[in-house]
């Protein structure tokens, strides 16, 4: 049984013109100790999907799902108090902006110990020692003295390490990382990603890494979920996805990677933007930007179904997936 099982997850926000589905029928499975990459442009519902797993969808958002289970436990309909026992303990999350994600009024030590105290209890001294260990574990030099530091006294990279220390403090089974390196310097980005992957392997925890950087996914993830406009467009093993992307959107994302278009002088782009709340197209949500779109795509919305193309366990939401037979790949 997968650690995390999601079926038909939707997040809706009421708007003056009816409700808007920011996340629309997402299916996702994450196995114990697996590293799953979630990619997609801004506004594709990646962050909201993670937040709904954590139970952190802000009011007045509404989460619905046919199945939402974590560690064999149904997360739907459990009380807020029961939910909080999971949130931050078995499932933890780190965010994009380390500088604003830590409370400026409290010391780093306090914020780490707080998570420990709430979930594991423990004496002040035990938690302090554990906090030092954690800071050491995430590569912060002189951890003992850093406990008394306030977030504004540390750099962005250091703060993200503190966030990671806080997230792994209770040995979570699942870590959700929402673009953890996007706001950081390029050199620090690699360090933070390496740290996350290392922690994931050492602790055997599952990691969902949300990013819009395909390169990051290629280097780290075992499986990739490509999201578009709140839906899962395609999902499969990372090697398969990069070799033979089936969804035109995935193919478009990959084509626009500079390292993959060495022979062309101009980088191909995906024209247009992700549809927002008020310009949802009919049929397939991607059809206005899709070069393979046909009449059927305008009329009929494709379903997400299994697509074991040249591998195991992929799934796809497309009427006319790309067939790589005869292209030499």
């Amino acid at each position, binding site marked *: 049984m997968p650690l995390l099982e999601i079926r038909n997850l939707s997040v809706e926000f009421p708007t003056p013109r009816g409700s808007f589905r920011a996340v629309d029928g997402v299916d996702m499975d994450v196995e114990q100790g697996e590293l799953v990459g979630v990619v997609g442009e801004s506004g594709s519902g990646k962050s909201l999907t993670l937040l709904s797993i954590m139970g*952190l969808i802000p009011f007045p958002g509404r989460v619905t799902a046919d199945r939402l289970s974590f560690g064999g436990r149904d997360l739907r309909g459990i009380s*807020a108090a029961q939910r909080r026992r999971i949130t931050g303990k078995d499932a*933890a999350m780190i965010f994009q*902006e380390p500088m604003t994600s830590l*409370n400026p*009024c409290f010391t780093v030590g306090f914020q780490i110990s*707080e998570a420990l105290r*709430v979930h594991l209890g423990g004496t002040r001294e035990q938690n302090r020692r554990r906090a030092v260990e954690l800071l050491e574990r995430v590569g912060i030099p002189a951890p003992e003295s850093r406990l008394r530091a306030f977030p504004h006294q540390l750099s962005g990279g250091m703060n993200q390490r503190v966030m990671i220390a806080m997230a792994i403090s209770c040995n979570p089974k699942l870590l959700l990382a929402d673009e953890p390196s996007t706001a950081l310097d390029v050199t620090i980005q690699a360090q933070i990603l390496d740290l996350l992957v290392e922690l994931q392997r050492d602790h055997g925890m599952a990691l969902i890494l949300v990013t819009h950087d395909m390169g990051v996914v290629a280097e780290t993830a075992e499986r990739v979920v490509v999201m578009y406009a709140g839906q899962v467009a395609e999902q499969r093993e990372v090697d398969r996805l990069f070799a033979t992307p089936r969804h035109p959107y995935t193919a478009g994302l990959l084509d626009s990677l500079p390292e993959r278009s060495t022979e062309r002088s101009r980088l191909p782009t995906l024209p247009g933007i992700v549809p927002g709340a008020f310009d949802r197209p009919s049929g397939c949500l991607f059809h206005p930007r899709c070069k393979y779109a046909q009449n059927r795509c305008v009329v009929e919305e494709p379903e997400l179904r299994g697509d074991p193309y040249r591998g195991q366990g992929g799934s796809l939401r497309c009427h006319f997936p790309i067939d790589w037979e005869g292209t030499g790949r």
Partner: protein
Amino acid sequence: MLRFLVTRVSLVIPTFIGVTLLTFALIRLIPGDPIELLVGERGIDPERHAELRAEMGLDQPLLHQYGIYIWDVLQGDLGRSVVTRQPVLHEFFELFPATLELSLCAMIFALSIGLTAGVIAAVRRNSVFDHTVMGVSLTGYSMPIFWWAILLILLFSVNLGWTPVSGRIDVIYWFDQPTGFMLIDSLLSGQEGAFTSAVRHLILPAIVLGTIPLAVIARMTRSSMLEVLGEDYIRTARAKGLRPQRVVGLHALRNALIPVVTVIGLQVGVLLTGAILTETIFAWPGVGKWLIEAIHRRDYPTLQGGILLIATAVILVNLTVDLLYGIINPRIRHAR
């Protein structure tokens, strides 16, 4: 920190010069002088009048008088009241505890309700509670204090008979006042019913005086909380699995308080000026009422000294708030 303190304190000097100059000049702009008001309607022989003026030094050029006054103030001498012949400093400290007690109670009233209402309104924004709090606080803020006081007196004292109309305690109680705070002294006296009486006397004036600060604090807390609740670190706190009470009451409020504390400091000034009106209406024997009487009697030394001392109190409070600001906001403390 030390440099901050020095800069901050040195700013106090021009403030003091301004305060003394203003009160000194303004009181002398009012027609009449202390002597005329002392003798009342009987009138006084012009020669004797001139004699007395000379005795008080009122015949000197204004600038000269001001110079003498400042020189005395610098030596800690605020002069004596023209009416009672008592040292101004002594009279002030006799009466100040009454004003302080009233202001403190008004502030506690304003803070406890204002902060709570502001926080709840922010958490349940756009709810009925939110709109009610904001509507009521706007009304409270716009309400003339004296009118509000009269309304409350009419309702609670006259119609319902729950509270007394004036004074600090019933006349049947008499005891020593070692602290000057009626609530504490009445308890210390051990006289039955004294404390209850003191509380009943205090309630209405404290509510009246606290109304405007309450409204300001509630609105400020709400807007500050609204801003903070949208911050990333609140999401982090929730992601840790903290209880909502802890997220709001510790993580959010701690940050939201930073601007609110500044407002609270400014409200202390409002409280002390409001005390003048409130004390007059409720016949509360504090410095506010004392100052009003000093104006009526053209009691120059009392007025100058009293206002200078109140200004000192306001300045001290604001200084404390500035220092407090550094404590509750680590980003300021470490800024260099």
